[in-house]
């Protein structure tokens, strides 16, 4: 089951062609060579043991890192050749990111954290605040709007992180072990949130060790081993 891509008739939000990443020019690649396509509205779970290249794949798709070989196209734009400035612009307009340890800025309030990516794009403050309010209501965290992240529970923090990731209505939501730092209840909470987002049509790439999470949230799952695609299945097949 190494079928590399989804059907070509669908619109692909992510297209990786012959992508490889080496950190050491003499050693084996940390990832690839790899071909991968993710369709719009698809929720892809990326699983694999530690060091299998999951985070590297996520970094390449997010434009946080550049491939040593191959091309990376996201939302119709080839991003492996973009300048740092253009990558930053692309990222803030088209990609939302959720991290395992939330990566909220401790000295900003919940509302300010959520508004930050919108403000970086130059969105007017009132508009950014309105969008943040909308998301806080959607994610049931509006009561924490003026609180600082340090006072929130793990689940609440991750909800804030998801709200922040969605504030610019990104084409692609990348989630790196989003429940990895949460207790069971909070993990369930976040899992439900991601399922809702996927149902709403949000394209998601989810990196996780948690097969249950992958099963619950993803419509497709790939399994990486030593940087190579070992398995590519729809979740229905897994089930």
């Amino acid at each position, binding site marked *: 089951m190494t079928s590399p891509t989804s059907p070509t008739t669908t619109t692909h939000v992510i297209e990786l062609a012959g992508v490889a990443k080496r950190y050491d020019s003499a050693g084996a690649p940390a990832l690839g060579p790899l071909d991968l396509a993710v369709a719009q509205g698809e929720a892809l779970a990326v699983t694999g043991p530690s060091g299998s290249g999951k*985070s590297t794949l996520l*970094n390449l798709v*997010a434009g*946080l*890192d550049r491939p040593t070989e191959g091309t990376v196209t996201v939302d119709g734009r080839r991003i492996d050749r973009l300048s*740092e*400035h253009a990558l*930053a*612009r*692309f*990222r*803030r*307009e088209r*990609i939302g*990111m959720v*991290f395992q340890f939330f*990566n*909220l*800025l*401790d*000295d*900003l*309030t919940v509302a*300010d954290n959520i508004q*930050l*990516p919108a*403000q*970086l*794009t*130059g969105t007017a403050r009132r508009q950014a605040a309105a969008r943040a309010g909308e998301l806080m209501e959607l994610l049931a965290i509006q009561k924490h709007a003026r609180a*600082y*992240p*340090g006072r929130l529970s793990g689940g609440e923090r991750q909800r804030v992180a998801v709200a*922040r990731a969605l504030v*610019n209505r990104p084409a692609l939501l990348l989630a790196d072990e989003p429940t990895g730092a949460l207790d069971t209840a909070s993990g369930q909470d976040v899992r439900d949130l991601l399922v809702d987002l996927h149902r709403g049509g949000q394209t998601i790439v989810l990196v996780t060790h948690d097969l249950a999470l992958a099963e619950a949230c993803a419509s497709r799952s790939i399994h990486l081993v030593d940087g190579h695609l070992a398995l590519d299945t729809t979740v229905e097949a897994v089930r």
Partner: protein
Amino acid sequence: MSGFGTGALGRVVRSGVGRRRVQTVVIAVAVMMAVASAVVAGSLMVAADAPFDKAFARQNGAHLTAEYDPAKASTAQLEATGRVDGVTATAGPYPVTSIRPVDGGGGHLRPVTLAGRSAAHADVDDLELSLGRWAEKPGEIVLTTQVAGPAFQLGSTLRSSDAADAPTLTVVGIAVSAGRSADAWATPAQVTALASKDTPVTSQMLYRLDSADTGGQIAAARKKLTAAVPQGALLGTQSYLDTKRAADTSAAVTIPFLIAFGVLGIAMSLIIVGSVVSGAVGTSLRRIGILKAIGFTPREVVRAYVAQALIPAGAGIALGVVLGNLLAVPLLNDTEQVYGTASLTVAWWVDVVVVVAALLVVGIAALVPALRAGRLRTVEAIAVGRAPRTGRGQWAHRAAGRLPLPRAVTYGLAAPFAHPVRTAAMLLAVAFGTVAATFALGLTSSLTAVAEAGDPESRAAVTVFTGADGPTVTRGPAPAAGTAEPPAAPEPGTAEPPAAADPARVRAAVEAQPGTASYYGKTQADVTVGGVSGTARASLYEGDSRSGAYEMISGHWITGRGQVVVPSRFLEKTGTELGDTVRVTHQGRTQTLRIVGEAFDTSDDELEIHADLADFPAAAPGVFLVEVKPGVSATEYARELAAEIQPLGGDAHANSPSEQDGLLLIVQAMAALLTLMLVSVAGLGVLNSVVLDTRERVHDLGVCKALGMSPRQTVGLVLASVAGIGVLGGLVGVPAGFALHAYVLPVMGDAAGTDLPPSVLDVYDTPRLVLLGLAGLTIALLGALLPAGWAARARTATALRTE
């Protein structure tokens, strides 16, 4: 300790130093600059301590310099004066004459006392060569630093006079005589050859006395010397007390300036070293937690971190001492010129004190946060690097977020409030840098104003000598204070006046000379002033003398008869005020003159008064001071006019720009160098703080970049994080620099024995103050530019992994 012997500790220290190379380098460089500036500042402060006394003692300077008529006293008789009671050592006799050199551009220098000595070294007045070598053959001359100024270097040439057949002399050395026994030296044969009827050779003897603390003791020695030689043989003497007074006055002007810079330099060094080291240790708490978790005792942690701070700081201290000594060389050379001393070096104990103090500051600065880290519970220490911060500065983020500025900028603006101590240290560094820049700019502006105000006579393009009694032209030692030279004996070195001419005919020639733009007449006369013992010097002016007016501290320049302008010292000494009258007697005729102005006159310590020549019928202009029309060559003008008036007994010289005050150039150069150094140290302090801050915030910056913050926005964020500090530093530093200038300048004026006019004190205008205010911002931004670039270039993925 059993599990972690020195080997384990050593490895921890080495890895701590090696892993954070950028921070290690920044600590070393910041400490190096701070220590270098402390060495320079300390050296200058030491040099400013009694410079004349030290140089005079080192050179075994002459307590009494005497000139004898060689026709009346033989060499043997002069040598025998060394056995006079109270004389402990002698040098001489040396032949002495006076020359009025002409520089390469045809400009005339002031008259120069030229002594003939076959070697620099002597039992008394053991000269120090600061440059070059001693004159060995005819055609060679050694100048004092004061005469050489900026115009004459080794190899420069000058002619001994403007006579067609005057020999050319090559400058082969620059020497220093603390006791100022002469202005220049050549071989004895050269001096004899340069003598003329008007400037005959006299014999100079230099004496050390067993008691020379007071004028009375000097006068007593002089009496004994007078008695030891044939009557009339002793032409004049110069007491070292007069030289000391003049030298101390000159040096005193610069002492407050050097001390101000010294204190600034040392204070800033302490702040920078302290903040750099404590910041470096304070940001390593997580690593300290890990060390404790694996079994390091608190004491070992403290030792490891103090050692870790000492390694780069120690390297910085070592390099800083070397750099400080190197930087001090040109500054001490400048100081030598200001003080008229030689061989100023960095005192060894300055190096030692700076090293010990720096090590202490580094040790304490490292110890305090290391002790705090050592006392932290292990779990807390580990959590410090990862747990949400304490909440400091959150209010600032809330407030900054409301500003109508880009979010990256407002985020940066609030950043300093998270680390109040680090911010305070950075603020102090910027403020000190701004104080230095403000003070230096004010000082150089003031000194420029002093130079422009001083010696107005030298501002004229051409000096025309009428041949009548003119300004006293002295050479050689002045008579000792309190000594009564018989009137019959001319002062040594006083030029015989040339054949008397008719000033009216010279004036007519000046008026008729094409190229004359304006002129005024001037003469100087000895007068007596009611209430003042002894004589005073009067400068008397004819015609419109506004171009030769002194800067006025109060009142106005003389505008007609019956008026007198006096220096501050005169008012102080006589207890008079503006509007009072004084009785001035010249050649038996007494005039009552009203004091209409207080002049800014730093020329010497005499009580010189300025009045209208018309009030003194017995006086005639000795010189006419001429401004030439634009485009007219002063040298050519003087040559043509001289040809007209020499048959009348007059003469004309173009004034040499080389006679401009070298002190101004030196002090300006010193101020510029010291300011550059202090501003660099301030910038390094900022650099270090921003490096620490950037390193500490690298994860947050990574998050921002992952969310889409562009490199330009990242640079904007980091620069904004210091912008507020820069602005505040400017707002604090400019008034403090202004106040320092306002405090130091009058102290310098007091040392020079004068009040200061507004043109010297009020040197800051609004645009200049605004620009200086921006200096703080510039220092801060320059210091932050490098780490801002690093932050922008840092790989986001790596930053996100950073704990």
